[in-house]
């Protein structure tokens, strides 16, 4: 034992030297070894690229990271907005704003001219609004930076929102609605969210023909004007530039943009209340053409700032990935599914979900559900093994360096934490908490946060071929059918 250790140390020193590049000679013979006999140089140190942060006088927050590897510059603005803030009867409004800001061109550069110019320079500007934020990004060659950045500023400040582009966007959405039942797994994800959050919740509601019809150009302009102000924006830029010159350019393009005196940032966001709508129950979307069922099982989850986020993510590792319990048992041992998973999936500022599921042939639907639930039960009733804990923690900790693989990851993390009001060392606190997680912690969080009685079970599949039937899942099981047929496009 002691001998082996000593030997290991020597190898370690030798390989260190070679890896660091000091040992150019290949005189040291290498003997092939089985992985258990290898010793490694110490893990690489995390290096965080330097970034600078400053505020413009109008309140815009700016983050800069220089990266001179290639002659490219890109940037992203994050806007305090989100489609959860749109009125329910105009669902789709925020998405249209996010799309047409870019696709409709600006006052000075109509769509055609904007597209032409950007593509001629192999540059891009893209915009969008998702559930919890808005974004605008650009990317271009260093040599075109000034022009591309100028257009980026125009898109943010003077989008034209031409009526024909709004109509075009609506038409595209109508096309998406018509196609939304063509993918069984898409139906499952969509309807599962509705069961958890409720059909009208901003976290589950869907764009409909009628909500599109309710949206006017006036709504689009109003929504834009409400949220797009310099003091409501974080701007991050990364790439091949000199920070002082970049700052001048930003000042030139944005400093004269007047701030709003209305509340901004997180004060602007009154977040919707969240509670689970369906607690428990079995739901079926009957699709007679299918030979495979898509299954989702779960309930309301939590937020990333929970003190138990780290042990919960260790729990995720125990269940998922190669060597994870679900993949080992349900996929590899029982051959029930190609895709099977169970995740505690928290969100930054609203409760996420816990969702398990997978896809399996119709007659294996009930066995898949039972096998998955059995694994969740086991997690609650029996402590995991020490080697499982080690596997789960090591998978996070040994790969931690990949959170710092590119300077862009650092920039976007810094901005994300700022946007959601998280501490900047959040990721390192998480790392420490993962290190500290014990077998007992995993069992405790499984018992506290996984609630079998609240789990909703949703199946998208061919009812007639699901044998044994879903009603056999429990003695008093009642299966509720969900009708996903489309309303008439005429709205």
């Amino acid at each position: 034992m002691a001998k082996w250790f000593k030997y290991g140390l020597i190898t370690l020193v030798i390989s260190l030297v070679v890896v660091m590049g000091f040992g150019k000679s290949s005189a040291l013979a290498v003997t092939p070894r089985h992985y258990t006999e290898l010793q490694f140089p110490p893990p690489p140190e995390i290096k965080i690229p330097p970034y600078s942060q400053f505020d413009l006088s109008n309140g815009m927050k700016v983050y800069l990271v220089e990266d001179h590897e290639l002659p490219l510059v890109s940037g992203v603005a994050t806007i305090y907005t989100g489609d959860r803030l749109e009125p329910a009867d105009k669902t789709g409004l925020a998405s249209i704003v996010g799309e047409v800001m870019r696709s409709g061109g600006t006052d000075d550069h109509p769509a055609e001219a904007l597209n032409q110019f950007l593509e001629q320079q192999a540059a891009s500007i893209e915009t969008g609004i998702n559930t919890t934020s808005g974004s605008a990004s650009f990317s271009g060659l260093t040599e075109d930076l000034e022009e591309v950045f100028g257009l980026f500023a125009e898109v943010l400040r003077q989008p034209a929102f031409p009526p024909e582009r709004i109509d075009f966007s609506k038409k595209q959405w109508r096309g998406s609605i018509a196609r939304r039942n063509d993918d069984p797994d898409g139906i499952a994800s969509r309807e599962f969210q509705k069961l958890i959050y409720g059909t009208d919740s901003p976290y589950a509601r869907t764009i409909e023909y009628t909500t599109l019809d309710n949206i006017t150009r006036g709504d689009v302009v109003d929504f834009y004007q409400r949220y797009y102000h310099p003091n409501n924006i974080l701007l991050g830029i990364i790439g091949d530039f000199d920070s002082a010159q970049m700052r001048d350019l930003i000042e030139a393009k944005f400093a004269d943009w007047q701030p709003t005196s209305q509340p901004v940032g997180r004060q602007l966001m009154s977040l919707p209340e969240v509670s689970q709508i369906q607690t428990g129950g079995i739901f079926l979307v009957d699709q007679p053409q299918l030979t495979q069922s898509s299954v989702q099982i779960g309930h309301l989850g939590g937020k990333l700032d929970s003190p138990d986020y780290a042990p919960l993510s260790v729990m995720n590792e125990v269940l998922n990935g190669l060597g994870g319990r679900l993949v080992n048992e349900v996929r590899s041992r029982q051959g029930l599914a190609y895709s099977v998973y169970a995740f505690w999936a928290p969100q930054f500022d609203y409760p996420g979900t816990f969702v398990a599921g997978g896809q399996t042939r119709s007659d294996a639907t009930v066995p898949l559900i039972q096998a998955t639930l059995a694994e969740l039960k086991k997690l609650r009733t029996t402590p995991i093994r020490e080697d499982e804990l080690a596997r789960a923690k090591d998978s996070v900790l040994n790969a931690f360096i990949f959170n710092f693989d590119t300077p862009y990851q650092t920039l976007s993390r810094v901005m994300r934490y700022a946007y959601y009001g998280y501490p900047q060392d959040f990721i390192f606190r998480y790392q420490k908490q993962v290190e500290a997680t014990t077998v007992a912690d995993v069992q405790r969080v499984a018992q506290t946060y996984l609630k079998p009685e609240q789990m909703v079970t949703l199946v998208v599949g061919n009812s007639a071929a699901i044998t044994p039937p879903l009603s056999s899942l429990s003695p008093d099981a009642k299966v509720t059918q969900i009708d996903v047929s489309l309303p008439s496009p005429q709205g």
Partner: protein
Amino acid sequence: MRFFPQPLLFPRLRAWRSAIIVVLAILLTWVLPTDALAQNSDNGTNLQPYIDRVARQISEFRLSNGMKFIVMERHQSPTVSFMTYVDVGSAYELPGKTGAAHFLEHLAFKGTTRIGSQNYQAEKPLLDRLDALFTQIQAAQAAGNAEQAAKLQQEFDQLKAEAATYVKQNEYGQIVEQSGGVGLNATTSADATRYFYSFPANKLELWMSLESERFLEPVFREFYEEKDVILEERRMRTDNSPIGKLVEAFLETALPSHPYGRPVIGYETDIRNLTTADIDQLFDTYYTPDRIIMGIVGDVYPAQVKQFAEAYFGRFQSRTRAADVTVNAPAQTEPREVVVNLPSEPWYMEGYQRPAVTDPDDAVYQMISSLLTGGRTARLYRSLVEQQQLALNVSVAPTFPGDRYSNLVLLYAQTAPGHTIDEVAAAVDAELTRLKTEPIPFEELDRIKTQARAGLMRILASNQGMASLLPEYEAKTGSWRNLFEELKAIEAVTAEDVQRVANELFQPQNQTIGKLMAVGG
């Protein structure tokens, strides 16, 4: 096809919003082999020094057994990406054995004599017995002896359960992930099988050890359980996916008797009938050192990589290279069409037969594809999607489903509500005719060239991207340098070239049309 489902994106709200994009992305990533350079080219000529600098960071060596290593030094971050590129894909499968290459890819995660088993000595005879029983069951079924088959099946099931007690499930992947490996996965296409992941840079030797043993002493255990997994994968990608079904039917029609005319994942009957002997046969024939190309990109030093590679991969015996596939498909002489009726909104496809990637006009095919759908200013996008609003989207793949041999330029579109496939077809035809009859303006040509150059530039900073592209170019074109040479070919393309190739390509006798028509609801 890939071994593991795409990392689960946490269920996104209104996931269907992006359904179309996802479908297209899936088409492009698993049906179409990746050719990341497909849409890009020139202008900013001061990019050349950067490209040259990166090219100088790339070196290569070949072991005496024929295995090739391509190493790109990139010290920006202390990580390294690995790609094992095996020059065999579904095109190499024997008749009746479709799906074998992909099945082998799955089995390459099952471990070795030392990894994945509690006791290989005890496990081995059970595995052999299982294979023998499976053959007997097949024979009994073929002879119509149901009673005998059922009896054997019972014995088989018991034995399978016993064999399973020796298995350490997914131990191979577990070692990789526990050691800090990320992105572990594999894909099979018509042309190639790829195995890949990334490690922190201090684990270079661990990759050498694990990856060499993986193919030196593989054990294809859990074969019959994995068959069920693959059948589920087929159900997901093809049988329960309208576009998956259309693609399968389309290729059968467009490329009959051609190795690209069969599905990569395999037909259900073939998958069910595959035996371990079939997989061994494919492995022994094609997983030879001279068909394996390694891409290693990141924080490594070539001298050390070579030293390790010689020790670990030098253990492979050199073997006689199996012959490449030859394509003997009859020449197409008239247009073809296939219609699939499913409860789905309509899709439209057009394919045109084209030569392999090594054709001198390859760059022109790529440019034509960019001209048609490479952005908001591209011709088909503007005409079909924005101006006439007949389609929700339209895409062109310059090669499909592989490109090592003759293949297809593929156009596909989703109709917009209230518009028909015929309207889309007519609008496509009008744009293709314009391409054949009018020389493209300089500005348009120049734009595509600039985009190609910038596109390459954007890939250079990706370890995984380069680890994938370098071996692919080596395998398909004879040298990884063609990744860079291709830019010169693109720059040299003229308006006359585009018009000439468009005229050769877009002819009725080259054309296959595929229609997915709505039935029911």
